[in-house]
C-alpha cells in the first residue's frame, strides 16, 4: 500500500502543483519522500508501541484521488446524514463524502470570514495557505507526511481579526460504498487576533465496508483568539481513524478541545499544542468508552514555549470487553517558559479482565519556576457505590451506567450547548446499554 500511495502522489504531483506555488509543492514533495523512506509506523516506534497499525493496514483499500472523475453512483441526501448532525444548533456545515467535499450537503460562507473546503481554497486563498500549510507538521511522523503530500479536501476556516463566528461549524466526514476505502482529510484553521470560532467535528461511516481516515489538522490562533473544538468519535465497528491535530497559539489565546470517543474500530488521536506566546491557554478533555475489540489511543503533547502559559488536561477512559486503551501525555516545558502552569490527569476504569490500558505521563521540564502536576489512575468500578445505588432501588445495569457517567462527567462538563450535551447523553447512554437515560451528565 505504501507504494500505491506514493505512486498516487507522483502521478498527480502536477495537479497539486497547479494550484499552489513552489513552496507548497516543495513541502508536499519533502513529505512524500519522508513517507517513502519511513513507511508506516510499526510497534517498534516508541509512539506506536501499544497501537498496532497492522490491523488497519491489512485491508485492501481503494484509493481515490481528488483528480479522478467523481463517482456519484450513490449520492447522499440530507435525510441520510441528518441524524448525525447536532440538529438543534444552527451551524455552518461542511460535509465530506469519502474524503471529498459535498457542496450539495454543505452550507458554507465567505461573507466576513471563510468557512469552506480546503479543496476550493488552494488557489483562491493561496496567499493565506502558503504561510500556514505544513508549517506545524514538518517534524511529525510518517502518517502526517503522507497526509501532507496528498492533502486536498477538509475544513478550511479563516476568521479575520476581531471577528466572532455567529454560529458554530459542523464538519462531517462520511464514508460510503461497499469497498474498503482509505481517505486523507486535511484541515486548516486560521484565526486572526481576537477571532473566535467553534467547531463540532464528526467522522462517520455509513457502510459496513472497512474504512480508514487519516486526518491532519493545523490550527493557527492569533493573539487573544478563542476556539472550542468538539470531536465526536462514535463510528461504526468497521471504521478506523488516525488523526493528528496541531494547534499553534499566540499571546493570550484560549483553545479547548474535547475528544469524545464512544465507538469505532481503531482510534488514534494525536493532539499537540504549541503555546508560543505568553498567556496562551490550552484545555483538553477526553473520554474513551471502549468495548469489544476496540482500540482507543490518545497521544497528547503540549509545548510550553513561552512564560505564563497554562495547559489543563483531563482524560477519562472506560475499558470493557477486550478493548485496549492508550494514553500518552507529553508536556515539554522549554527553558524560557517560566511561570508555566501545567495540569494533567488521566483516570481509567477497567471493567473486564481482558481489557487493558497503558497510560503514561511524560513530563520534560527545563524551566525552574513552574507548577506542573500530573496523575494517572487505573481502577475498577467502586462496589460500595454500586451497592449504595442499588439499595436505593436503582437497577444494577442503570447503577453501573450512572457510576460510569459520573466518572466520565468532568470530561464533558465544559461543553456548553444543551443540545450537544443531550446528543452526548444519548450516545453515551446507547454505548452503556441504557435506554431512556434517566440522568443527565
Amino acid at each position, binding site marked *: 500500500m505504501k507504494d500505491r500511495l506514493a505512486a498516487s502522489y507522483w502521478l498527480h504531483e502536477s495537479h497539486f502543483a497547479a494550484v499552489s506555488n513552489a513552496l507548497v509543492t516543495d513541502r508536499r514533495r519533502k513529505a512524500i519522500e519522508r513517507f517513502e523512506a519511513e513507511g508506516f509506523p510499526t510497534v517498534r516506534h516508541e509512539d506506536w508501541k501499544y497501537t498496532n497499525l497492522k490491523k488497519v493496514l491489512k485491508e485492501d483499500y481503494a484509493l481515490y484521488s481528488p483528480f479522478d472523475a467523481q463517482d456519484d453512483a450513490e449520492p447522499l441526501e440530507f435525510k441520510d446524514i441528518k441524524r448525525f448532525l447536532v440538529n438543534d444548533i444552527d451551524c455552518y456545515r461542511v460535509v465530506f463524502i469519502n474524503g471529498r467535499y459535498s457542496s450539495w450537503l454543505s452550507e458554507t460562507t465567505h461573507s466576513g470570514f471563510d468557512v469552506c473546503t480546503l479543496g476550493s481554497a488552494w488557489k483562491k486563498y493561496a496567499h493565506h495557505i502558503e504561510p500556514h500549510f505544513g508549517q506545524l507538521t514538518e517534524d511529525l511522523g510518517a502518517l502526517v507526511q503522507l497526509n501532507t503530500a496528498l492533502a486536498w479536501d477538509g475544513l478550511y476556516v479563516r476568521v479575520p481579526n476581531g471577528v466572532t463566528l455567529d454560529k458554530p461549524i459542523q464538519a462531517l466526514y462520511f464514508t460510503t460504498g461497499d469497498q474498503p476505502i482509505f481517505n486523507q482529510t486535511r484541515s486548516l484553521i486560521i484565526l486572526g487576533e481576537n477571532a473566535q470560532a467553534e467547531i463540532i467535528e464528526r467522522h462517520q461511516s455509513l457502510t459496513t465496508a472497512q474504512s480508514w481516515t487519516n486526518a491532519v489538522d493545523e490550527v493557527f490562533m492569533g493573539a487573544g483568539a478563542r476556539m472550542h473544538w468538539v470531536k465526536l468519535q462514535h463510528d461504526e465497528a468497521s471504521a478506523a481513524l488516525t488523526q493528528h491535530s496541531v494547534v499553534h497559539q499566540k499571546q493570550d489565546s484560549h483553545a479547548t478541545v474535547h475528544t469524545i470517543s464512544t465507538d469505532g474500530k481503531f482510534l488514534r488521536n494525536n493532539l499537540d499544542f504549541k503555546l508560543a506566546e505568553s498567556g496562551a491557554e490550552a484545555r483538553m478533555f477526553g473520554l474513551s468508552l471502549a468495548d469489544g475489540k476496540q482500540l482507543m489511543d490518545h497521544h497528547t503533547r503540549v509545548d510550553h514555549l513561552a512564560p505564563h502559559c497554562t495547559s489543563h488536561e483531563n482524560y477519562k477512559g472506560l475499558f470493557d470487553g477486550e478493548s485496549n486503551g492508550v494514553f500518552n501525555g507529553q508536556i515539554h516545558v522549554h527553558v524560557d517558559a517560566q511561570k508555566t502552569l501545567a495540569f494533567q490527569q488521566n483516570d481509567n476504569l477497567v471493567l473486564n479482565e481482558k481489557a487493558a490500558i497503558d497510560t503514561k505521563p511524560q513530563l520534560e521540564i527545563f524551566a525552574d519556576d513552574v507548577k506542573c502536576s500530573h496523575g494517572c489512575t487505573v481502577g475498577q468500578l*467502586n462496589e*460500595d*457505590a454500586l*451497592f*449504595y*445505588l*442499588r*439499595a*436505593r*432501588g*436503582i*437497577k*444494577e445495569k*442503570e*447503577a453501573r451506567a*450512572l*457510576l460510569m*457517567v*459520573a*466518572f*466520565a*462527567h*468532568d470530561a464533558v462538563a465544559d461543553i456548553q450547548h444543551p443540545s450537544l450535551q443531550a446528543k452526548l447523553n444519548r450516545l453515551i447512554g446507547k454505548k452503556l446499554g441504557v435506554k431512556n437515560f*434517566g*440522568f*443527565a451528565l
Partner: protein
Amino acid sequence: MIEIVNLHASVDGQAILKGINLTMGAGEVHAMMGPNGSGKSTLSNVIAGREDYEITKGDILFNGESILELAPEERAHLGLFLSFQYPVEIPGVSVSNFIKTALNEMRKARGEEPLDASSMLKKMREKMDLLEMDKGFLSRSLNEGFSGGEKKRNEIFQMAMLEPKLAILDETDSGLDIDALRIVANGVNALRSSENAFMVITHYQRLLDYIVPDYVHVLLNGKIVKSGDKSLALELEERGYDWIKKEQA
C-alpha cells in the same frame, strides 16, 4: 413485616452472624444495640442484600416471603431502606439527580408513572424543610465533601423521599450534634405510622429519647442475647455491656 429466622452469615468462611432471630411488626420501632464488631452493620447489609456475605443458614421473610434470592434493588422496591453507617461519596452524581432516579425507578418497579418535574421538586422542598436542609444541597455531588452530619441528614432525606416500609438506621446518630440529632429524629418521627417499621442501630440512649423504641435488643458476637423494652437501653447506658457478656460466659 419482617421475620429473621436463625440467620447465619459469613465472610470468607468466617461466621459473623450466628443465628439471629427477630420479628418486627408494622408500626414498631426496634432498637439494636451492642458493642462494636458484634455484627449490627452486617445484619443490616445482609437484610439490604449485600452480596459480600454468604448466608449459610436461616431465612429472612418480608411480608411472609423469603427475600434472600432478591437483588438489593428488588428489596428496595419492596420498601426496604438502609441508612448507611458510612454513606459512599459519589462525585459527578448530584443529590437531586440521584433522588429523582431512585424515586422514579421505585415507581417504575411498582407500575407507577414517573413523578413530573414540578411534583418532584415540590416533594423535595417539603422534605428538605422538614429536615432543615439548605436548598444548595440538591446540586451538590452525592456525599462528596459532606461533613459527617450532612451525610447522615442526606440519608434521612432519601428515606423521607422514598417512604420505605422498613427502614434500618445504622448508627445514623453517630457524629451528630444535639441539634442535628433532634432534626433527624423529627424526620423519622414524621414518617412513623402504623404501616411501617424502623430498626434503629445505635450506641446511645440519647437518640432513643427522641425516637422511643418499642423493643430494645442487644447483639453480641453475632447473636441477639437480650431483648427488652426501652428500659433495657437505659440500663445499658448505665452499666455498659460487661454484665451481659458475663451473663453469657
